[in-house]
C-alpha cells in the first residue's frame, strides 16, 4: 500500500531550537509539496519540488525555513531557529505530474509541531 511517510508525527521543542521534519514520498512520484495547516490560515503551500529541483518556495519565511530533497526518497523541511508562531501541522504530499496533466496530491499524516 503506497503512502507518504512523515516523521516525526509529533514534535515539541523550545523556542530557538532547530527542527527537522522528514518525508518519504510515494515511490515513482516526481513532485513533492510541503504545506502548513493552522486553524487561522488553513493549508498554506510552503514549497514544492519537481524531480528534486525546487520550483517554488515563495510561501516559506526565507530567513528561518529551508526545504531540500537530498534524494528521490527523502524530502526535508528545516526550521532554524524555531518560534512559537511556527506551531502548526506540517504536511508533505507527493504526486506524479506531467506537463499539461492534472496534479493530484497524496498526503502524509503530518507532523504536529509545538514550539514553546
Amino acid at each position: 500500500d503506497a503512502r507518504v511517510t512523515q516523521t516525526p508525527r509529533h514534535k515539541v521543542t523550545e523556542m530557538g531550537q532547530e527542527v527537522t521534519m522528514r518525508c518519504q514520498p510515494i515511490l515513482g512520484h516526481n513532485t513533492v509539496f510541503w504545506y502548513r495547516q493552522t486553524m487561522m490560515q488553513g493549508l498554506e503551500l510552503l514549497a514544492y519540488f519537481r524531480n528534486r529541483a525546487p520550483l517554488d518556495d515563495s510561501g516559506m519565511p526565507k530567513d528561518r525555513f529551508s526545504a531540500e530533497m537530498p534524494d528521490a526518497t527523502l524530502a526535508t523541511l528545516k526550521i532554524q531557529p524555531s518560534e512559537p508562531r511556527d506551531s502548526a501541522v506540517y504536511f508533505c504530499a507527493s504526486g506524479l505530474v506531467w506537463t499539461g496533466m492534472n496534479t493530484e496530491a497524496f498526503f502524509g499524516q503530518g507532523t504536529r509541531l509545538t514550539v514553546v
Partner: protein
Amino acid sequence: TQLLEQSPQFLSIQEGENLTVYCNSSSVFSSLQWYRQEPGEGPVLLVTVVTGGEVKKLKRLTFQFGDARKDSSLHITAAQPGDTGLYLCAGTTSYDKVIFGPGTSLSVIP
C-alpha cells in the same frame, strides 16, 4: 495571486439531509480537486474535475466544475455520520502548483 474561497465555513446537519458546499475563485484553474480530511489525518483525494461543466458522481457525492473553470460544488445526498469531516477544494495552477481553499467543516448528527 490565485485564491480559493469556500462556503459555508461550517455546516451541521441531521443524518439523512442533503447539502451542497461551494468553492469559488476569480481565477481559472486547469483542474480542481476535492479532498476530505479527518482529525489527525492528512487530506484524502475524493475527485478531480478537469473540463468546464463536468459532473462526477461518487456514490452519494456529486461534484460539478463550473463552465468557466473558476468554481465547483459538492453535493451530498442523504448525509451520514461517516461523511463528517473537513472538505477542501484545491486548484491546480498553470505552474502545476496545488493551492487549497480554507475548507468547509461538516458535522452530520445521527
